């Protein structure tokens, strides 16, 4: 196979040609000091065994292929959900390059964020000057309505005080005194991106509600009957938030979405780059204090924010990334109870359609075993959905899940006969998952893009649900919440199941008697 101008060969074809194969074999044999292939094969097999699993689970210090990121990513995700807001991360600049790349690779969208570009001198003297100059530059160049500050671990280790720094910057005229600069300390060595989401959102609400760091009177709550909605860190934020708005509108509920980044991560290609688009207006963010209640779709993304809001007199309710019939029922009934509005007829019909679809397809999912990994709330939501489909979420693993999460998962398993042999694995990584898949195989794996390595190694088919999804496009545009979202998840799972059956029955004259046209 050689390169050809008529039919240009890509990397996946080009290097399979004999001249390249020969070249690579020579390289290995002569120069790479390779291990004996027999030894490689022996270790490869050993790494599949229960013995290896035991050693693997005995790890105390090493993390291999974790499924979590660090706090500031969550802070950036929150910040861009406010009108005209530019996230400003105080610390090393490389971190910001990473957050922007990470978000762009998932959403296939621009991701705007600035850094205070601290270097060695700032490590010694602190980053105050970087903050002073940085805020001034950001304000002048990008004309934001708000700059939301968070921190990298560098700034946290040296102990920079954001409150004092921002105050000083304003005194030095970096931004006008009344310009909104909420902040949150988001150390990367505590929690994960969901913690960062929580801290950043709390920081912004605190700013608006509790007197803008002592520069304005605290707001007096005058209840207005509205409902605040918090989505949490969510790779499906574009599809999900739009679906939630539709549901609220169907029910005639007055609402405020907090940190609404559904537009900024889905801007049109029409000749104009929108650094800012949509988002919760600053006025709405402030007035959100007057709401009757606040709903969080993800408990573990709002562990500090919700109590803070409850402390301001709101009724609060937290869900765990609800997916499917019962979880959506709970969500809607809670909404209905809080607002006194009946659940819309149209939603009742959608519910019926989801139940209909599940009944139609249940035979293909019933009794199938699944492994799931991801953020703690997403894991819970997906496991609950699988249980109501009669499937078994055998291994549920969350690198950023804690003991309390595992207990909650156990309670969920105990609530269903299909949860009998299911286990939750808090704080574990995807190398643990690899051992689980080898020693206790399941039929399907649900996780983010990195699950493809587990699919390759263990042969467990991967259904991509989670964050990040880098190697499939546009899934974030489709909701997984609401009955319609449940339908999307159902179809995604079914498509994989049918693809696998077809793949396993397509050898002519051998297995293709089962290559059925109707399934």
């Amino acid at each position: 196979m050689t390169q050809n101008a008529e039919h240009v060969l890509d990397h996946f074809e080009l290097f399979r040609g004999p001249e390249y194969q020969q070249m690579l074999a020579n390289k290995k044999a002569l120069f790479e000091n390779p291990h004996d292939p027999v030894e490689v094969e022996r270790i490869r097999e050993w790494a599949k065994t229960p013995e290896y699993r035991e050693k693997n689970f005995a790890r105390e210090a090493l993390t291999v292929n974790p499924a979590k990121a660090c706090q500031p990513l969550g802070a950036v995700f929150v910040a861009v959900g406010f009108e005209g807001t530019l996230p400003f991360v105080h610390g090393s600049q490389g971190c910001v390059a990473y957050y922007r790349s990470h978000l762009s690779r998932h959403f296939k969208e621009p991701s705007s964020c600035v850094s205070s570009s601290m270097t060695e001198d700032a490590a010694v003297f602190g980053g105050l000057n970087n903050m002073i100059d940085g805020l001034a530059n950001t304000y002048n160049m990008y004309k934001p309505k708000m700059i939301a500050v968070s921190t990298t671990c560098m700034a946290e280790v040296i102990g920079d005080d954001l409150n004092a720094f921002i105050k000083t910057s304003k005194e030095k005229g970096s931004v006008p005194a009344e310009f909104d600069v909420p902040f949150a300390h988001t150390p990367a060595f505590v929690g994960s991106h969901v913690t960062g989401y929580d801290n950043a959102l709390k920081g912004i609400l605190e700013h608006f509600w509790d007197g803008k760091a002592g520069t304005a009177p605290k707001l007096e709550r005058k209840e207005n009957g509205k409902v605040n909605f918090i989505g949490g860190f969510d790779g499906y934020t574009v599809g999900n938030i739009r679906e939630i708005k539709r549901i609220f509108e169907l029910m005639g509920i007055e609402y405020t979405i907090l940190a609404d980044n559904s537009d900024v991560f889905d801007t049109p290609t029409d000749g104009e780059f929108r650094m800012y688009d949509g988002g919760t207006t600053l006025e709405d963010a402030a007035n959100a204090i007057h709401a009757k209640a606040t709903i969080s779709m993800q408990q573990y993304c709002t562990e500090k924010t919700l109590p803070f809001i409850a402390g301001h007199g709101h009724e609060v309710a937290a869900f765990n990334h609800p997916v499917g019939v019962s979880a959506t029922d709970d969500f809607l009934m809670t909404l209905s109870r809080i607002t006194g509005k009946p659940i819309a007829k149209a939603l009742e019909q959608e519910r019926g359609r989801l139940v209909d679809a599940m009944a139609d397809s249940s035979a293909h999912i019933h009794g199938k075993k699944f492994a799931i990994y991801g953020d703690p709330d997403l894991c819970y939501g997906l496991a609950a959905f699988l249980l109501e489909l009669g499937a078994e979420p055998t291994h549920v693993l969350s690198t950023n899940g804690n003991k309390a999460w595992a207990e909650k998962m156990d309670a969920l398993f105990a609530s269903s006969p299909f949860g009998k042999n299911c286990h939750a694995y808090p704080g574990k990584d995807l190398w643990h998952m690899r051992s689980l898949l080898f020693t206790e195989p399941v039929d399907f794996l649900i996780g983010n893009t990195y699950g493809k390595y587990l699919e390759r190694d263990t042969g467990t088919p991967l259904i991509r649900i989670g964050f990040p999804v880098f190697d499939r496009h546009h899934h974030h545009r489709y909701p997984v919440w609401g009955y319609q979202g449940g339908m999307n998840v159902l179809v995604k799972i079914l498509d994989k199941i049918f693809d696998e059956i077809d793949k396993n029955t397509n050898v002519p004259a051998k297995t293709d008697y089962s290559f059925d046209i109707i399934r």
Partner: protein
Amino acid sequence: MSLATTESVAEIKARNKQLIDEVLKVYPEKTAKRRAKHLNVHEAGKSDCGVKSNLKSIPGVMTIRGCAYAGSKGVVWGPIKDMIHISHGPVGCGQYSWAARRNYYIGTTGIDTFVTMQFTSDFQEKDIVFGGDKKLAKIIDEIQELFPLNHGITIQSECPIGLIGDDIEAVSKVKSKEYDGKTIVPVRCEGFRGVSQSLGHHIANDAVRDWIFDKVSPEAKPTFEATPYDVAIIGDYNIGGDAWSSRILLEEMGLRVIAQWSGDGSLAELEATPKAKLNVLHCYRSMNYISRHMEEKFGIPWCEYNFFGPSKIAESLRKIASFFDDKIKEGAERVIAKYQPLMDAVIAKYRPRLEGKTVMLFVGGLRPRHVIGAYEDLGMEVVGTGYEFGHNDDYQRTAQHYVKDGTLIYDDVTGYEFERFVEKIQPDLVGSGIKEKYVFQKMGVPFRQMHSWDYSGPYHGYDGFAIFARDMDMAINSPIWKKTKAPWKDAPRPSLMAAE
């Protein structure tokens, strides 16, 4: 669509100068003064591009740069496939850079090869407070137990390591001794060091010198018989297979490649490199340090080359061959002749579709200059370029060998500047990174990622040029760019007929 083709050089220069003045207006005075030094219009005949470089980025401006960790773990060390690279510190750095650079390799991942894995010490608050050295020691033990076929370990420091005073060198030495002289390399590439990725490259190069070269016993038996034609490829990260489509040409001309740095590279190859007769250096920026060191210490000459596009490839093959005897020189001619029909066919197919199109680049490493020849082979013109983390020697090479009179030069460009430049110049193509891609596509400007080859590649070598040409064509001539404006917006409003 481009304005450049219809303007004289003098007009272009005037326009570009005016553009620079315009963008500087947005900055506070102090910042404008600093940024002004990084922006210029190239004057033919000058020895460099007339910009300052390798200086600190300005806070708050949205620099595109990364950090020293990215330069060491992400670029230099990460692709060494049979070693395990620990991202030492909190979880994020390793997570965001996990398998993101497309350094292709052959090997059984997780067993004898580890490139696309994320090993991290996942620092918690207690590690910051009490130090992480004990944890690091334990991590090395656990790696030895679970990944027994690894050939070595590197410790890639993240920001906190240098701030909390951990002694990773001591841990490395102790553990190396404990495991019979195992190669364990501590790398001080904390992200706050230096001003960009660039210092990370340098630190990583130095770590190879101090912890690999200096540890190889002079009496160690070579694993292969030396030949007079042994060369090492330095500074090719095998993105999308670039080093492979380069290696094949060197081998076809009669040379033997004994090492690849660092794409698809191995510890044994690093160790064997001082046996090379010539180091051929693609990415000067990231690996000139180790090339100079090998020249000084082992007397190995090095030679920069450029494998983008047939003109530069032929020039480079001849330059490399000039270090060898006639057999190799003839080999170079044979290789050039062999691929000529393919190149003719590629150019015949794509040049008519790309002739006269203009390009603006902003990339890292060698690409802001190296790819210019490949575009020119396709009849395209680079009208603006700049380096994310270049030094003055990069701008010298650019000025002396690559850019045309009047080219707009922007060092460490900010998001704001780049948008304004592209908006005003309206090139037919922008080549930059993932953070820039969607910004320009929203503006309706065709774009190719020139770090990851937009998940395509290889772009190096003759085989790679065919892919490069096709990719540029499909970016620029995609029918989608005609659809960015809704037709009812373009249409002139029909004038109302007067009522009778």
